[in-house]
């Protein structure tokens, strides 16, 4: 079994390596003039020279790759052309908040989705079941960047509940309620530092963003739980339980559930990883800074949601975010597989 873990770890490492190779290709080899791309907008010739030196664009390909790769290994993701700070710093600032949001979305998906899925499986083809199926179809299809706007429209403009955006409801929130930086995630730090008032306001401001973010996962979880329960209830061992007169409630809640939930819980882990993309949209719309979404928006050359053509995207920043996101994704996949291995002792390698 140790071999298996090692193989998986190696595979994960290769995937990350492959990611780095791809980003290298896209940034160094594909563009006609990588130096210009890296230099940002309206670069002066001296700037281009400096950039060429810094990233080694005039060197042979392998050397370039080595510079690139070793840099990443050291944690140096380059310097943002727009913000003019090391990318790694920016990303590390943004990561905890984004991860928290994704985790919260996954948790909500589980808490809401699993019971609903069980309910749906219990009363197949009833009104409730059909309603839930339609609901989850819709939840999965609605674009997150749109539903967020609509929620803002309905709740903020219309009903005047919930703030329009930003942690705590205002971009100046943390000047009024300073919170120590422990983990880097506002939600966690406010809690850890005992600042419950601030925590409450932060959570209140996150209601709409999380509603937007969790819609898709909830839909997926409902469908999966329902399918898993129905599939499990068709298994032979459930038939045995019935043949031995075990009460239906008990069969469902104890025997079937344990078997049915396993794949659903696994997918929650994947949902967490997948939510990172939704986080980008949600952080953008609700102006939740710092976060990966805001970074991407910054990196794309504009300060707030708008549609101006990117004239000079911040390549190091975007690449940095991409690489980090991929690493999180790969690590999560790996963790999920390892947990599965531990939990379900039937899995043989």
């Amino acid at each position, binding site marked *: 079994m140790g071999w298996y873990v090692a193989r998986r770890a190696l595979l994960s490492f290769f995937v990350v390596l492959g990611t780095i190779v791809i*980003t290298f290709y896209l940034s160094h080899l594909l563009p006609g003039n990588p130096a210009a791309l890296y230099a940002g907008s309206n670069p002066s010739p001296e700037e281009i020279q400096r950039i060429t030196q810094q990233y080694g664009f005039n060197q042979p390909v392998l050397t370039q790759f080595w510079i690139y790769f070793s840099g990443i290994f050291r944690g140096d993701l380059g310097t943002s052309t727009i913000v003019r700070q090391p990318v790694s710093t920016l990303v590390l600032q943004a990561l905890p908040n984004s991860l928290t949001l994704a985790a919260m979305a996954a948790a909500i998906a589980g808490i809401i989705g699993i019971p609903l899925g069980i309910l749906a499986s219990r009363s197949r083809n009833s009104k409730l079941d059909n309603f839930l199926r339609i609901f989850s179809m819709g939840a999965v299809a609605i674009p997150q960047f749109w539903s967020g*706007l609509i929620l803002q429209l309905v709740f903020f403009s219309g009903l005047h509940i919930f703030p329009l955006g930003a942690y705590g409801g205002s971009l100046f929130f943390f000047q009024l309620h300073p919170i120590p930086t422990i983990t880097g995630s506002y939600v966690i730090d406010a809690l850890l530092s005992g600042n419950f008032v601030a925590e409450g306001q932060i959570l209140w401001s996150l209601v709409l963003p999380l509603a937007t973010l969790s819609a898709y996962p909830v839909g997926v979880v409902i469908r999966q739980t329902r399918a898993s329960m129905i599939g499990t209830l068709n298994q032979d061992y459930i038939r045995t339980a019935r043949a031995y007169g075990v009460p239906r409630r008990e069969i469902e809640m104890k025997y079937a559930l344990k078997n049915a939930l396993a794949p659903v819980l696994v997918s929650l882990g994947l949902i967490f990883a997948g939510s990172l993309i939704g986080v980008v949209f949600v952080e953008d719309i609700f102006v939740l800074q710092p976060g990966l979404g805001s970074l991407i928006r910054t990196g794309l050359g504009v300060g707030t949601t708008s549609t101006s053509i990117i004239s000079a995207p911040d390549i190091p920043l975007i690449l940095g975010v991409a690489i980090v996101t991929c690493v999180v994704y790969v690590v999560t996949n790996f963790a999920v597989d390892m947990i599965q291995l531990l939990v379900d002792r039937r899995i043989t390698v």
Partner: protein
Amino acid sequence: MKVPNALSGTLGRFGRTLRPLFHEKMFVAGFVMVGAMVVIAVFAPWISPYPAQGEGQTALTTCPQSAAGICPPSWAHLFGTEQTGRDLMSRIFFGIRTSVEISLLVVMLATAIGLAVGLTAGYFGGIVDEALMRVTDVFLSFPHLILALVIVAVLGPGFNDVLYALGFTWWPSFARLARASALEIRNRPYVKIAKASGVSNRSILGRHILPNAISPLLVMISVDLGAVVLAEAGLSFLGLGVRPPTADLGVIIAESANQITTAWWYALFPGIFLTVLVIGFNLLGDSIRDRVDPRLRGFMGTSFIGRPLAGRLGLQRRE
């Protein structure tokens, strides 16, 4: 023994699968939705109230609410107007056209790449298979949107760039499926006979493997179309989509974000159409998939982002 004409057989089977589907509510609903959208897409220049504006011509409509020309719905403009006074309905119709067009092209590109990679890997096996599958794994572990984002960021926005970006993001799942098909088909009697009789590999691939591999791929295509539409709109929303003045639903929604508190129509209508389009594709895809082979449910998922890595290492797992 006559070698079956695989392609006509596949399409025939597919057609026969489709007809009874019309009895299923889900399929009909999806078909109607997609059908309506396709009609809009195709006939946009003719059914839009202001086709020129749909294509991008500005028109300063005046209304008391907005100097910029963003006006609420009125008899002249049923959905209101967007910035620079363009009729929103026309913009939406042309935007649907863009979405449908790009999505279909993306899927075709992804299928082409996926088939090439997957069939080669599955048919030849061995090192070729290993190598190609490792590459596929790497791409598969990239969250879809992130990869597309990077590609477009580097290449710059524009129709073709979005097309390539999304195409290169989506091919891994098709490759996996194609590979599974190739593995299964190459063991069939008529293929073995062909090989033994010295038929060239390329010929076998083209005449036997390919047509039979297409059928499950068609199912996957229908399942994924919805996700592609969402991804494309998402990219446009971030500003990485087609260049203005081409209409695009994601772009319209992005433009509406700043005005959300004042111009409700601006955000509402494009989103509704986009959602209907995605739901329609999803309904179609899921009902086709359920009909053809419900077992594929685990394999193909429900157009969800990302597929687990472990499945590919032959990890025994209960679905």
